[in-house]
């Protein structure tokens, strides 16, 4: 319990704060005590001076009787010895007073009760002595009162300190316990998440304090995490589902081949079918792994300055005739574009996928247009649009989902991962993808941000210069 209390941050803070406060209280008390003492001493001295001068004035020329009487009456008025008086002749003979001894010197001094010939008492006296005529008058006052006042000041400060400490410890325990309860709830929630209960959330009080902010942020992070896990799970289910179909077909084909083999028929066609099926399954797997790797973002470390316009021209050359063969027309209109940081191979694949999608899903007679233009100062956009049949608005979000295929395209070859790959590559490059109605047809726009907005580009260039990385070697030279 004590250990837990000591480890609690709020309790530590409260303790630290109260210790600091107590130190200041002590210092302030010490100063106040000093000031009060000085003031009381000054007043006492003033009173003693007054008494001395009043008694002194009663001295007449060669007439000691008034003086002696006055000292006697003063002494008699102070049986408790708060004030002491002593009148001595020039020879040291005591003429009057309520004490029997005193310091021989004149002026201010401090003497113990002992030195004044009083009973063994610890009291201290402030003494003023001086000549009156040819006698010496001594007046003094007990310092007990001053010390008592000091003691009262000190003890009241001490009491305040003790009360404060008690209050602080109780408050600290309460605050710590309250904070601890909330932190325990956070810890409990995290433990539940750790056990796989992803729906668990930290209760939030809406006090808008820091713990609430933290809780809200953790909850939001958990929300996103939950979404990711759910989508991963969905993807796994989709993959399993989508691969089961071709695996089934493969199994049937092989089964069929075995049966035909037994009856001595040729199985070459079936084996070819089986191989195509296996190839398709492999392509799906490879696309999935590529997407996963691209999403992991490791490739960003290989970013170099890339001329997107050049990539588009290259793709146009590659696909113009493919489109023509399909009865379609591919056009290109590219403005001069700023260089962007990126991976040339992946960007080529991104645009190739968009162009191939248009070629594969549009009917003959369609015009497919590649256009690119600046958007403001440094940003630019590339779009691949067609005037074909397009896709319904409701399907726009879904086409980017992994393995999603429009019903009408189920019969055409493809693994439904092309646009997921496009999205993954675009995200790697900080680019966004927007679909719009080309009325008729579909327009897919890839919007690239300001080149400087792409992280690491500059650093990477410096790093690769420093390492003297050789230019890429071409294959099959």
């Amino acid at each position: 319990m004590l250990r837990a209390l000591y480890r609690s941050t709020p309790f530590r803070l409260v303790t630290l704060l109260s210790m600091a406060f107590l130190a200041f209280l002590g210092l302030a008390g010490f100063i106040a005590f000093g000031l009060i003492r000085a003031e009381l001493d000054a007043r006492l001295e003033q009173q003693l001076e007054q008494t001395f001068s009043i008694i002194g004035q009663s001295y007449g020329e060669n007439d000691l009787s008034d003086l002696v009487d006055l000292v006697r009456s003063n002494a008699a008025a102070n049986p408790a010895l708060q004030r002491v008086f002593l009148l001595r002749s020039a020879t040291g003979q005591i003429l009057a007073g309520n004490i029997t001894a005193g310091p021989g010197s004149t002026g201010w001094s401090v003497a113990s009760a002992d030195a004044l010939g009083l009973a063994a008492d610890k009291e201290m006296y402030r003494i003023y002595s001086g000549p009156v005529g040819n006698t010496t008058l001594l007046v003094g006052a007990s310092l007990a009162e001053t010390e008592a006042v000091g003691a009262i000041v000190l003890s009241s400060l001490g009491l305040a300190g003790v009360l404060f400490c008690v209050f602080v410890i109780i408050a600290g325990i309460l605050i710590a316990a309250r904070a601890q309860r909330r932190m325990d709830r956070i810890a409990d929630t995290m433990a539940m998440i750790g056990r796989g209960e992803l729906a668990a959330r930290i209760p939030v009080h809406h006090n808008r304090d820091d713990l609430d902010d933290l809780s809200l942020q953790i909850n939001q992070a958990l929300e996103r995490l939950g979404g990711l896990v759910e989508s991963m799970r969905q993807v796994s289910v989709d993959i399993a589902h989508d691969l089961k179909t071709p695996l089934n077909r493969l199994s049937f084909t092989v089964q069929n081949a075995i049966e035909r083999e037994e009856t001595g028929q040729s199985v070459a066609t079936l084996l070819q079918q089986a191989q195509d099926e296996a190839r398709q399954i492999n392509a799906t797997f490879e696309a999935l792994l590529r997407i996963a790797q691209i999403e992991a973002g490791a490739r960003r470390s290989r970013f170099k300055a890339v001329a997107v316009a050049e990539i588009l021209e290259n793709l146009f050359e590659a696909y113009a005739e493919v489109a023509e063969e399909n009865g379609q027309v591919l056009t290109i209109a590219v403005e001069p574009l700023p260089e962007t940081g990126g991976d040339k191979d992946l960007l080529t694949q991104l645009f190739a996928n968009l162009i191939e999608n248009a070629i594969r899903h549009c009917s003959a007679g369609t015009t497919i247009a590649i256009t690119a233009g600046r958007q403001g100062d440094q940003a630019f956009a590339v779009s691949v649009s067609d005037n074909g049949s397009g896709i319904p608005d409701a399907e726009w979000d879904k086409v980017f989902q992994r393995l999603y295929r429009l019903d009408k395209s189920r019969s055409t070859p493809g693994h439904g991962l092309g646009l997921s790959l496009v999205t993954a590559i675009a995200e790697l490059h900080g680019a966004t993808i927007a679909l719009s109605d080309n009325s008729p047809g579909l327009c897919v726009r890839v919007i690239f941000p300001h080149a400087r907005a792409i992280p690491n580009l500059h650093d990477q260039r410096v790093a690769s210069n420093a390492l003297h990385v050789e230019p890429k070697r071409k294959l099959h030279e």
Partner: protein
Amino acid sequence: MRILFVEDDARTADYVNQGFAQAGHVADVIRDGRDALVHGMNERFDVMVIDRMLPGLDGLSLVKALRASGNTTPVLFLTAVGGVDDRVDGLEAGGDDYLVKPFAFSELMARLNALARRPPARTEKIKLQVADLEIDLLRHSCRRGSVVIDLLPREFALLNYLMQNESRVLTRTMMLAQVWDFHFDPQTSVVETHISRLRSKIDKPFDRPLIHTIRNTGYSLHA
């Protein structure tokens, strides 16, 4: 052709080794990266096929070590599916080509032929000729017999690649990488379309075709 084949999976190794034997090649099959290093340093091979993932010493380190010891034998890397950076990593380590698993044996053989027969120091030829087909690399011109043939830049690049590798089988992926710099598998018939265009210009008008389709594998240009 003498081949060093480093592959730890027994079934793959057996299958590929049978293929090598049928094609009349001799392959030393090694399972472990460290053994392969000893073998590769002490004996001469025409070409080496090295899996990236190996026990003992991984493929990349193996090739780096071989290259550091002065070995210049062409190396083809076999990589697992989806290795986005494998090609670049392999080339930087000193590899000459790469092939993604699972692969067709014909693809592997086509690539090994291209690697092994690569002339040690490439002499830059200005003119290439196969039968009566001739291209001028400086003027980018093409002629068959006495007929001058007009080619688009990409058609010229494709023909150049085929002629540089006369009589060798070139696969679709080899052509895509070399002619278009595409390192992915297109879903449309890019290569077929361009080959068909090229044929209509250099083969169709003449009686003897030079571009030959190798079924399930690719194309080859020879007389």
